[in-house]
């Protein structure tokens, strides 16, 4: 037993000690990871024994019946609007997938898993906006981040599963230097030297979980996901001479900007999966989301332009901008309930006994799933300078699939094709500005999101 405990400690320690924060991703957080999880409202902390455990609960991976490989695709259409007009928040679409490989390590049940969401839109940059600029702060960027997480899980006791994993974001630090002479009247004769020095450093973040078997009832789960964000900083220096028809004007310009983007709050999940009735699974998760730690994503920029313009030269030099004083966003912590239900209909074919599965299976089974999530907006009334647009979000999801259990000698496990549909409704929220001189003014925010996806999973 002591050996098992030591191994469990190793598994968690390897995850936690090597990182400073967690592998919490954006698309899974907003739309779910995998069709089964999305169809069940993301209430998966105590039931995620497939690749989705890489997000919902690493500990549950060790509950996998066998090595599995999953791949799928998801597409979410965002129709978020203010004052009745669509704001063009980008649709979110990409590949999902992962693997789970269970086994034994020193005689202890063990599993290794990888989960992936990869947008199929290519890699690009972050947009840093002025503080006053309205934005759908929770949906305009965070779901666009690639999610890849890897986890370990062990079952040190028959009734206890522990797991943990690591992910990290790429933070950008860079500098941009220009020097030389710019010829105003003949730009092609300019001689400018450019130097770019960019550094992508990792921002790591952990997640850990535990799952406890309650005999005859199901499982309980506890998950912690750490906080993370992308710290982006850029410095630029321009030092040179501007040539105005032979008049040499020395110029020095410096700029430094820093912003935190794609903030993901730390979360604590308590979940239950009730499986007392054969073929029926009822999952409930309650997620505490630490939105109070949200940081203002406005870029803090300091710039300085120094030019000695000779007398008589018709050039106007703009003043240096005043530095921005950031307003604390004062988001509120939230409890987010998730509910998911699944019933698996045996449809056709002979009876199968799958290894590790206590239930008799038929060759062909059809699961039917439904889920619901209520996310109360953490964004306080935007009566002041900032206009972080948001509204409460109700998400209803449904799903089904087709499972072939032990269809042949090549595949002794199962082959499952899941599909899901997801509709989020954001009821209208009114914002009234305290200051009648607001550039934004009062506004109405509302929207819908429609998500569809499919996942193919092979259990070997």
């Amino acid at each position, binding site marked *: 037993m002591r050996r098992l405990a030591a191994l469990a400690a190793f598994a968690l320690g*390897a995850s936690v000690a*090597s990182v400073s924060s967690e592998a919490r*991703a954006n698309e899974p957080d907003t739309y779910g990871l995998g069709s089964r999880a999305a169809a069940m409202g993301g209430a998966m902390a105590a039931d995620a024994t497939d690749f989705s455990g890489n997000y919902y609960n690493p500990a549950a991976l060790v509950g996998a019946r*066998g090595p599995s490989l999953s791949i799928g695709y998801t597409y979410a259409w965002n129709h*978020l*609007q*203010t*004052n009745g007009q*669509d*704001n*063009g*928040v*980008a649709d979110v679409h990409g590949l999902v997938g992962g693997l789970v490989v*269970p086994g*034994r390590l020193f005689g202890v049940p063990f599993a*290794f898993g*990888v989960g992936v969401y990869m947008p199929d*839109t*290519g890699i*690009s*940059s*972050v*947009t840093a906006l002025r503080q006053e600029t309205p*934005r*759908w702060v929770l*949906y*305009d*960027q965070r779901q*666009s*981040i*690639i*999610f*890849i997480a*890897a*986890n*370990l899980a062990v079952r040190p006791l028959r009734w206890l599963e522990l797991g943990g*994993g*690591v992910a*990290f*974001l*790429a933070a950008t630090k860079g500098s941009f230097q220009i020097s030389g002479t710019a010829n105003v009247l003949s730009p092609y004769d300019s001689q400018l030297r450019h130097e770019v020095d960019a550094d992508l450093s990792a921002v790591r973040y952990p997640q850990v979980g535990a799952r406890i078997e309650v005999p005859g009832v199901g499982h309980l789960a506890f998950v912690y996901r750490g906080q993370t964000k992308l710290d982006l900083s850029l410095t630029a220096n321009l030092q040179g001479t501007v040539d105005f028809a032979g008049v040499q004007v020395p110029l020095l310009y410096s700029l430094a900007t820093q912003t935190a983007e794609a903030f993901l709050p730390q979360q604590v999940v308590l979940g239950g999966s009730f499986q007392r009735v054969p073929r029926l699974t009822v999952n409930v998760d309650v997620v505490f989301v630490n939105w109070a730690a949200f940081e203002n994503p406005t870029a803090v920029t300091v710039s300085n332009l120094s030019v000695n313009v000779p007398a008589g030269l*018709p*050039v*106007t*030099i*703009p*003043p240096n901008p005043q530095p921005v004083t950031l307003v604390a966003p004062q988001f509120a912590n939230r409890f987010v309930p998730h509910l998911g239900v699944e019933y698996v209909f045996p449809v056709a074919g002979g009876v199968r006994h799958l290894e590790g599965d206590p239930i008799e299976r038929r060759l062909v089974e059809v699961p039917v799933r439904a889920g619901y999530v209520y996310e109360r907006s953490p964004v306080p009334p935007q009566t002041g300078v900032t206009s972080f*647009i948001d509204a409460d979000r109700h998400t209803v999801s449904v799903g089904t699939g087709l499972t072939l259990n032990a269809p042949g000698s090549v595949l002794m496990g199962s082959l499952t094709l899941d599909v899901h549909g997801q509709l989020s409704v954001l009821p209208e929220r*009114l914002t*009234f*500005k305290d*200051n*009648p*001189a*607001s*550039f*934004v*003014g*009062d506004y*109405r925010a509302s929207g819908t999101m429609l998500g569809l996806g499919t996942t193919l999973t092979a259990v070997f």
Partner: protein
Amino acid sequence: MGTRFHPWGVVLLVSCATLPEPPGGNLNLPSAGAGPFRDIVAAELSSTRAPPYGLDDGGPPYGRDITVLDADGDPTTLGVIAYLAAAVTENGVAPTAASPTRSIVRHAALDGRSFDFPSEVVLTPDAPWEGDVLGSPAAVRAGGQVFLYYAAAGGIGLATSTDTHAFTKASGPVLAPAAGGWEQGATPASPGVVQLADGTFRMFYEVALAPGKSAIGEASSADGSTWTRVGSGPALAPLAAVDGGDTWESASVGSPFPLLAQSGDGRSILRLYYGAVDAAGQGTIALAARYGTDGDFQRAVSPVYGTSSALDPREPCVVVFSAFTLLYATEKTSSGDKHAAIAVGVAPATAALGAPDPP
């Protein structure tokens, strides 16, 4: 099943993330249409003009201090008429850019920003109280007439017209200097007038407190002709920062332009655009507003125009169209040139103005 792992093989606990294409979310964002204003660009202006100047005489009569009226009162059409203060030739000598303005001239623009020229003179000084000076016109359409207020040596005058061309002057100033009070006998200047929803009028005007320092006063009128000062102090005064430091309006505020608007929940808003000057002498166009017609003004978080240049815009005028708002301001064409021109800005910055007319 039955797969076994060697502990040394457990090394892949890594993952990574970065960001894909620009996320969007910047279309049709809520905007009060109050600013900030960007300069109009060449494609938005008739080819015979240099952006952002919708009107640049480049020589006599050096029109400035524009006031603009929607030509037909229909915000879906862009035609406007404008009145400017202009210098005149005196004794056969052409004026310079520094000459005082002695006439009010009329222009028009089919597209709201490319003003025609030459101008048409509609007012000249002919009363002793005017002191041979006319300037800073402010036009309001009310009751089928155009009320044209102007600054003169003896105060603020009024002329009315039914056809926008021929004006009839009131016999004397409608707002003369106040002997006492905070104005200390200063001559009210640079009027801006708005008709409220109840049919009454509000005037805001500039009061010189000291050289280089002015504040904005307020007056009300039931008929646009007889005015009564409102309050015992300025409606808007220069404002230092909380820590005593400089702001964009710590030195002076003036050249007011009032505008009625409505909030999303139907509250009436009185916006006041004005010229602001900081301690370094840098001029910008700023905005303050209040809910309802009375009470204190609240300032916007930043100036609405002129922060990216050192051209010292002043004398703002704003016209709201159905899809965007245009700002007209008088500013230097360069830091080394004293002659002023009429710059045009548009809000929101993403607004599409369409093709200019004439091209």
